[in-house]
């Protein structure tokens, strides 16, 4: 083989196809029926269970686990989907260690929570694998709703509206639906084309048309769709990315981590994804971890995650941080980027050490220079191309608790809306709740 992890520069094919395939297997493999029954039996069926409170979609977790324990996994799946139609993806990508599983009383008791995420996957996989759609549409209401964005918020909203008998059209900017589920999460969390299969399954309820390649502000205008539809839901996500405003940020191989993640996700066998020998990822969230781990899995020899604050402040959960270090990445907290050096392409990056003081984050004056032939920036995403005249709050679309924006007849949810915490599961909850409010609104008018 020509290339290896030690090949200088940025190149594809550092590992052979077989090794790559092995590296990108399902991160949390599915439970088999017996494992699920053993895992389910550990649930105490708590009163007013803390796990339910901790779930952004308020899934009745003790009930679905009991349904698994009593050998009715499809009923369990129904319990999950009633609250979260993307329960299959959430079972794969939710940071359960900071949500339901953190709240599990067995975490308090013995440091080993009930495996809620994997049990949820067992239940949802069981139902989805036989291809059946557990919901049917109500009689058509004749009302038309436009959903902009086929990500978690938009899909969740569309499905709930379809259940109520409204006719939904989803407009999505990308080539494929799914939003971040399709483009924005590590490949090892959604193997076997799960995101796409899930969308197809969701759409099988009927009553939802989907049009790809329709970007708001470019291919379609809000005014037009407002005119054509009885209600509009915006679930456009955060399309922009923050850039580093330091010297050298424009050098070759200084790119957005989100693009890298999308490229990896869309790759068929990963042999076509170029990765550096020495990769530095800047950021402390899930995007940074997903990019860093995948760079390692693609064969990068050295992968470092540099984060400007202390490690405890990282948005990525402790579990994700540990995954990164277990895969051979190094996490370097308290480093803020100062300059990037290189000729046409990046060759190194210099950071200043930081410390947290009463006045906030301060540089200490000391610096460190890391060899880098690829820099992946994961320093936050921003709302881009928002419609004119819509009120924003801290850079996101302002919504009330029902998802209503400042414009009558327009709702919003997911990452593009204020509040929430940029999680798939939160987006699903917001899309669902907005749909409930839209439905109420449509029935009243």
């Amino acid at each position, binding site marked *: 083989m020509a290339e290896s992890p030690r090949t200088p520069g940025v190149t594809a094919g550092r590992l052979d196809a077989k090794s790559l395939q092995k590296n990108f297997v399902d991160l949390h493999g599915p439970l088999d029926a017996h494992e699920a*029954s053993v895992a389910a039996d550990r649930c105490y069926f*708590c*009163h007013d269970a803390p796990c339910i409170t901790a779930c952004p979609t308020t899934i009745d977790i003790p009930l679905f686990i009991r349904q698994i324990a009593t050998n009715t996994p499809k009923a369990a799946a129904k319990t999950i989907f009633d609250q979260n139609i993307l329960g299959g993806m959430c079972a794969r990508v939710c940071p359960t260690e900071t949500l339901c599983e953190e709240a599990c*009383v*067995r975490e308090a008791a013995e440091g080993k929570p009930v495996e809620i995420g994997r049990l949820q996957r067992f239940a949802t996989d069981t139902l989805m694998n036989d291809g059946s759609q557990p919901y049917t549409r109500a009689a058509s209401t004749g009302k038309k709703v436009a959903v902009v964005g086929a990500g978690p918020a938009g899909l969740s909203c569309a499905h709930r509206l379809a259940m109520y008998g409204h006719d939904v059209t989803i407009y999505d900017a990308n080539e494929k639906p799914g939003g971040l589920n399709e483009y924005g999460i590590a490949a090892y969390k959604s193997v076997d084309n799960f995101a796409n299969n899930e969308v197809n399954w969701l759409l099988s309820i009927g009553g939802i048309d989907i049009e790809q390649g329709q970007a708001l502000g470019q291919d379609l205008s809000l005014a037009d769709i407002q005119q054509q539809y009885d209600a509009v839901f915006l679930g456009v996500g955060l399309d922009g990315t923050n850039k580093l405003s330091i010297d050298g940020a424009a050098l070759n191989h200084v790119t957005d981590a989100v693009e890298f993640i999308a490229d990896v996700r869309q790759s068929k066998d990963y042999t076509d994804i170029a990765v550096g020998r020495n990769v530095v990822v800047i950021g402390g969230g899930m995007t940074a971890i997903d990019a860093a781990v995948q760079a390692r899995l693609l064969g990068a020899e050295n992968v470092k995650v540099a984060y400007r604050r202390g490690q405890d402040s990282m948005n990525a959960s402790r579990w994700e941080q540990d995954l990164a270090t277990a895969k051979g990445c190094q996490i370097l907290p308290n480093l803020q980027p100062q300059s990037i050096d290189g000729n046409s392409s990046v060759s190194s990056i210099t950071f200043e050490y930081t410390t947290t003081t009463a006045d906030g984050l301060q540089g200490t004056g000391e610096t460190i220079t890391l060899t880098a032939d690829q820099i992946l920036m994961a320093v936050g995403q921003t709302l881009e191309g928002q419609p004119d005249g819509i009120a924003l709050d801290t850079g996101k679309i302002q919504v009330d608790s029902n998802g209503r924006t400042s414009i009558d007849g327009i709702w919003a949810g997911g990452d593009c809306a204020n509040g929430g915490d940029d999680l798939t599961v939160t987006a699903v909850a917001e899309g669902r709740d907005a749909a409930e409010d839209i439905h109420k609104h449509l029935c009243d008018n």
Partner: protein
Amino acid sequence: MADLTTDFLGIRTPNPFWLASAPPTDKEYNVRRAFEAGWGGVVWKTLGMEGPPIVNVNGARYGAIWGADRRLLGLNNIELITDRPLEDNLVEIKRLKEDYPDRAIIVSLMVPCEEQAWKDILARVDETGADGIELNFGCPHGMAERGMGSAVGQVPEYIEMVTRWCKENYNKPVIVKLTPNITDIRFAARAAKAGGADAVSLINTINSITSVNLDTMSPEPSIDGKGTHGGYCGPAVKPIAMHMVAEIARDTETSGFPISAIGGVTTWRDAAEFMVTGAGNVQVCTAAMTYGFKIVAEMISGMSDWMDSKDYKNTSEFMGQAVPNVTDWQYLNLNYVAKAKIDQDSCIKCGRCYAACEDTSHQAIWMKEGRVFEVNDAECVACNLCVNVCPVEDCITMEPMQVGQTDPRTGKKVVAEYGNWTTHPNNPSALEEA
């Protein structure tokens, strides 16, 4: 290490753990392995009269219920007595007794209710050198329909009659194995004693259907789409067995009558509990059928450790120690008052105590801010349900109130005097105070 040697009816065995009459003791091969594993004795799988061998079903004989992780909790069976030729069994018993003189071999028997039938088989058993016999008056399926097994055990007069025949025609110990499929076990035990039995053993299996297949609508175990009741055994039956053993142990007519306890013995602790409740030894079957003969090693080490910790030198020192504490409800001390107490440090905040008390008991647990669960003494009747449903051992305890304290539920002071239902003012037939 404590001495586990146990004398039961003059039969000394190195420990009180015997294998019950059942499939594990059906032939020389198994019994030899059992003795090598350390079992103190065996009761040989029941022999029937000479003639055409017994016929068993050719499909599933066992049904079961399971707990978590398929832990076997209860087993039932529709197997009959030995289906091997009588002569084969007798030859093997004789050979094993010669090879293992320090272990007990008791021969279980079941023949028709005719004196001659018993006479015939007793003579044959005697020739083997076995240590005694056990009369199978317990099997609830198959043989009972032919007038044997539990069909005998359910009629005290028959128990007494057959026992007497055996005592008249056999010189060694006669143990009568009782069926639990009866209203009051004491009548059966009294009948055995009246017939001259040396001991009773109990319980045999309980009539049961373990489950029904909801696709085929056949009870399990299913034989070509049909099922029948089988004999239930295993951990699930232990509480029933222990009650029956205690009833015989404390009955004035059978008090002190030797008992070999059977019914769900799975660990050393089960065995110790049966023995303090009046048994002279125990017989095990389901645990061996679930885990193999090796489990006796845990029983031996466990009982030995416990005896050392209590300074018991010999199994006879603790036998029957709990019998005086088994009483009737009417003699329980109604002046004893306890309250549940939740240890906040070990509480994991699952709220099961709250759900149980709030929905199904006395609404005596508060759920406070931050999922703090506390007992409201003014409502707590000390029922113990919260203790039983709490997943953390010793997190909730029942704390007796001290004499002189006032029970906030009743407003009455706790008194030192013992007072039971027989003298309680609410009892219409209360005894007059002297």
